[in-house]
């Protein structure tokens, strides 16, 4: 029997790959977290439910919506540290820290994403080539586990669980609060420069050379012209130190509706991709200045106001594949990828490249490597092509992102992530009954 504290709801993942009836409870006090965790044998915590893959729910299982836990618990401007509850969104978090000239640079692409969600997925943001992932800023975590109780986690306290929790997809329990080390944010907006590139290899060579550069460096490349695969632009966002005025605009208050009605078919196809790519390409090549001022919001959260990009995939949705390829194999990987692309002509709406820095462990999407991002229309032809991409990942020891790609299987993860079994074993030691579960964890046997 379903308790009166639980609501049944039909829920769909952001990429529209998975839909199921789930149970929802919404704690709004600390004792409620304990009480509501007892309502079901299996549960998982839900932040903003904006992960592409279904990481915060599964069929007939309980999801604890954590949005009421969005408070600042402690802030020390001198020591540059902040403790916030896990349900706080980046919008609220940054509006506060930036007003004190501080921030964390590892910010995921949408302001409604919750801090706990970013910790559970080890989010990286655009400057990951220099700053690495959000793991580098985390000092402490307070975790609640239904059977293990309230735990303080840090490098010094419960270190194993601390490591399991960062990038652990919420499987160690509810991330109640997180303490971060903050960086100074010297300027108050960005100066953006654009550089033309004529191929994927050209882009990679230029991006590699900027590895030590603190700026945000990423590319936009076209894959809709088989004769000029990978031509496009490299964008470089530099914090504008000349602009000292502290009248930073607040990040817009937006409300994302998970249940909005979208078209039953995709508006993206070979023609529309070519059409929009041409507009974007020629606008940036001929009309846009090569160097211009950009405000904070449009640099950090480029998808604000452009949510229609995702809606255009219709109810069938999309698949995003994000892959980390080592510097050693990147050229070979790209060569084979382009060969396969010419042969199978998949429909890719977005292709982007950036640097990544860090040390790989467990299931964390983190390494010293090049990060490739592709958005595919979800159709049989593309899904078939993605199987070849999986084979490439295995061949070149590349890491496919688990949180982005909702079709990725246990077999591929086990072959690509050398610490996957270690993660499973350590998680099992901590949570013997596998209480915290999602579609993602079930699919990957975590």
């Amino acid at each position, binding site marked *: 029997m379903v308790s009166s*504290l639980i*609501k049944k709801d039909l829920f769909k993942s952001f990429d529209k790959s998975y839909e199921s009836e789930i149970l929802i409870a919404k*704690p*709004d*006090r600390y*004792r409620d977290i304990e009480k509501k965790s007892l309502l079901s044998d299996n549960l998982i915590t839900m932040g903003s439910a904006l992960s592409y893959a279904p990481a915060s729910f599964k069929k007939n299982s309980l999801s604890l919506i954590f949005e009421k836990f969005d*408070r600042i*618990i402690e802030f020390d401007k001198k020591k540059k540290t902040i403790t916030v509850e896990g349900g706080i969104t980046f919008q609220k978090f940054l509006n*506060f820290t930036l007003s004190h000239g501080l921030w964390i640079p590892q910010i995921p692409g949408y302001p409604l994403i919750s801090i706990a969600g970013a910790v559970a997925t080890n989010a990286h943001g655009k400057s990951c080539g220099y700053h690495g992932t959000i793991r580098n800023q985390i000092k402490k975590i307070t975790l609640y586990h239904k059977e293990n109780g309230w735990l303080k986690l840090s490098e010094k306290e419960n270190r194993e669980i601390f490591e399991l929790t960062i990038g652990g997809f919420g499987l160690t329990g509810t991330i109640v609060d997180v303490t971060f080390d903050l960086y100074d944010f010297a300027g108050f907006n960005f100066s953006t420069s654009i550089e033309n590139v004529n191929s994927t290899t050209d882009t990679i060579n230029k991006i590699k050379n900027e590895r030590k550069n603190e700026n945000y460096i990423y590319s936009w490349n076209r894959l809709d012209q088989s004769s000029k695969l990978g031509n496009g632009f490299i964008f470089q966002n530099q914090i504008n130190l000349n602009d000292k005025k502290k009248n930073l605009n607040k990040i817009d208050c937006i409300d994302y509706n998970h249940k909005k009605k979208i078209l039953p078919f995709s508006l993206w196809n070979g023609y529309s991709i070519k059409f929009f790519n041409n507009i974007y390409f020629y606008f940036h090549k001929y009309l846009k200045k090569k160097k211009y001022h950009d405000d904070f919001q449009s640099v950090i959260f480029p998808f604000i106001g452009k949510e229609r990009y995702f809606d255009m995939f219709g109810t069938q949705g999309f698949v995003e594949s994000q892959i980390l390829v080592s510097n050693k194999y990147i050229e070979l990987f790209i060569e084979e990828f382009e060969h396969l692309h010419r042969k199978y002509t998949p429909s890719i709406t977005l292709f982007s490249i950036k640097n990544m820095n860090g040390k790989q462990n467990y299931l964390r999407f983190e390494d010293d490597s090049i990060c490739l991002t592709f958005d595919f229309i979800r159709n049989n032809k593309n899904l078939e092509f993605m199987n070849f991409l999986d084979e490439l990942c295995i061949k070149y020891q590349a890491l496919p992102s688990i949180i982005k790609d909702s079709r990725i299987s246990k077999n591929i993860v086990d072959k690509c992530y050398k610490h996957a079994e270690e993660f499973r074993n350590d998680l099992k030691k901590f949570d013997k009954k596998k209480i915290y579960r999602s579609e993602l964890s079930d699919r990957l046997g975590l």
Partner: protein
Amino acid sequence: MNYLIVGASSGLGRNLAYKFAENSQNLILISRDLRDLEAIKSDIESRFHVKVIIHEIDCSSYIELDNFLKSNQNFFDNIDGILFPIGMINEDDNIRNESLPLNKILFGNYASVLRMASEANRIFIKRNKGVIVGFGSVSALLGRDQNLVYSSSKRALDSLFESLAITNIKNEIKIQFYVLGYLESNMTFSKKLILPKGSTNILSDLVFKNLDKKYKKIYFPFWWVFIAYILKILPFFITRQFFKLHLLLLSYLRN
């Protein structure tokens, strides 16, 4: 100005705390959840330039509240206004239940408000200044089978605030009473209801805006005023049928 909010750790109380802090009012917050009070205090003090004092008191316990008020005799001296967004519901609150925690529900919903409001009122009369805001419920409009102690406490609360308004008719003390319909809150989160839920944000705005009104009795959401009026003018043998219809509609919605 210093405002006391009783029941501030969640729902409407928490919302009111933020609304008042946003408008630069210092706060004294009471709740039985210390961890939540501490979180609200640190959040409000970090984000707004106001002072927040917190007290962990379980208002459904007569002894606890009595002890607190006896050991803090001057508690109301620096308070300019007091708000009671407090409510306690028990799933087994019906006349057939022998083990019902009657005292707790009665004290949590009514007697604690009576105790604090009357003490505060005495201080406010001396100063000829102050505001007392109470929150009732539409469940008090009609006798009922479920939540019996809760709804009768809320009806008593309605009468208490009318009495407070009459007591203070010749002075500057302001009395306001809100009769609340369904609100977006933890209590109604999983419930399928016949009428739409009101927003606690809009209600908090309204409460703050009305603070300087001498006497107000407001139904929120507003359509409840019409329902209340109809229920009042009709004889009980007819309103009983409304109750049956209501139960029928609810069982239809829930199935």
